[in-house]
């Protein structure tokens, strides 16, 4: 069911609303901060009054110091209460978040698989042709990492490096290495691993197994190795 892009975005965005609990929490936050502001204002006024009235500057300064000290203690108590409250809410929401994280993780893997499979099928021209990794590494001057030769072989086939080109995964600039693997071609995508962006993925340096998935008839493996996110793509025989 197709619709105008504008209408769909409107529907999508406007459907997101605060829950009653969230709204109530924000109202509580407002009251808390407002009361704290009022108290601070009252204290300032008290200090000003004392300073003007007594004429004793030394005593006024002492009072000012004492009031500031009390305010700091009150602020610390309030901060502690907020942190404690937040911690309790987080504990309560943890199971729900876990489910949400799992589904988000599956979405990330699916998105990476689709993007890599699409790039693999396109087989855009190589920007550097070499069978030596060192030459390929020298080519990638715009990357803030050095492409590696993975210890994971493509389906145990003998493979030979053909060359490489720039590409991207999820908007992050990446290196694409192309191999002759058996009678077909394999591509290996490398990008710095960022857990915040890609989620928790299997790390073969820790002995984890790569994630295997299929997209558009392409076999895709995803894993982390030596601090890089590696994604291999190969046609299914």
């Amino acid at each position, binding site marked *: 069911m197709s619709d105008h*892009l*504008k209408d*769909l*975005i409107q529907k999508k965005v*406007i459907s*997101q609303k605060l829950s009653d609990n969230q709204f109530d929490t924000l109202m509580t*936050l*407002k009251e808390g*901060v407002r009361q704290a502001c009022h108290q601070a204002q009252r204290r300032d006024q008290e200090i000003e009054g004392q300073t003007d009235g007594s004429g004793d500057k030394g005593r006024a300064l002492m009072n000012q110091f004492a009031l500031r000290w009390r305010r700091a203690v009150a602020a610390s108590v309030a901060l502690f209460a907020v942190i404690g409250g937040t911690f309790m809410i987080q504990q309560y929401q943890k199971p729900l978040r876990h489910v949400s994280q799992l589904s*988000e993780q599956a979405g990330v893997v699916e998105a990476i698989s689709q993007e890599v499979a699409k790039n693999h099928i396109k087989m855009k021209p190589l920007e550097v042709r070499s069978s030596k990794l060192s030459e390929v590494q020298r080519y990638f001057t715009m990357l803030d990492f050095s492409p590696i030769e993975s210890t994971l072989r493509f389906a145990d086939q003998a493979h030979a490096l053909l060359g490489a080109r720039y590409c991207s995964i999820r908007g992050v600039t990446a290196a694409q290495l192309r191999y002759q693997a058996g009678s077909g071609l394999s591509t290996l995508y490398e990008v710095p691993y960022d857990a915040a962006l890609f989620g928790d993925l299997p790390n073969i340096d820790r002995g984890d197994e790569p994630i295997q998935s299929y997209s558009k008839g392409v076999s895709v493996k995803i894993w982390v190795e030596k601090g890089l996110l590696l994604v291999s793509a190969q046609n299914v025989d």
Partner: protein
Amino acid sequence: MKDKDAVFNRTLLDRLYQYACVLTKEPHEAYDLLQASLEKYLKLSEKERTLSIKNAEAFIKKIIRNHFIDTLRSSHAHLLELYDEHAMSDLECRDLESVVIDRIHLESIWNQLEFQAREILYYWAVMGNTAAEIATILDVPRGTVLSRLHRIKKRLQERSGAKDPKERDHRGGIKGGIQ
């Protein structure tokens, strides 16, 4: 305190939450972002408020945006801009008006777009702003908004694989507007 209190109505808070959702894509993160930003806003002194706040909603959106970018700074990848970021383009918001797309495609593209692109789509589709107005709101040159629009259009094309939109009309995906 009158202006500060005016922010705390359901409609406006929902709008601010929706904006936070556009930036973060994740409801829990959006709520945390909104809460932190409102706290920052409420702690402003009367003087600061009078000097800087003409439109509370726009002002809080700016706080939300700055706070969001601050949290992203550690991960520079999110802020990477493609090489044609400042390339000029003659694409205008109205060129997107006729784009037709299905919900599944939109969800897929939405999740892959950088937050800057989602933000532009938000101001265009939800707030009804023009490219020039979006440029003023986001404090970027109009050319940058236009080139981001151009990139969004390219993404839509790539995602649908449509070279000739008329050919795709009977298969769903994207049609119209994309040339």
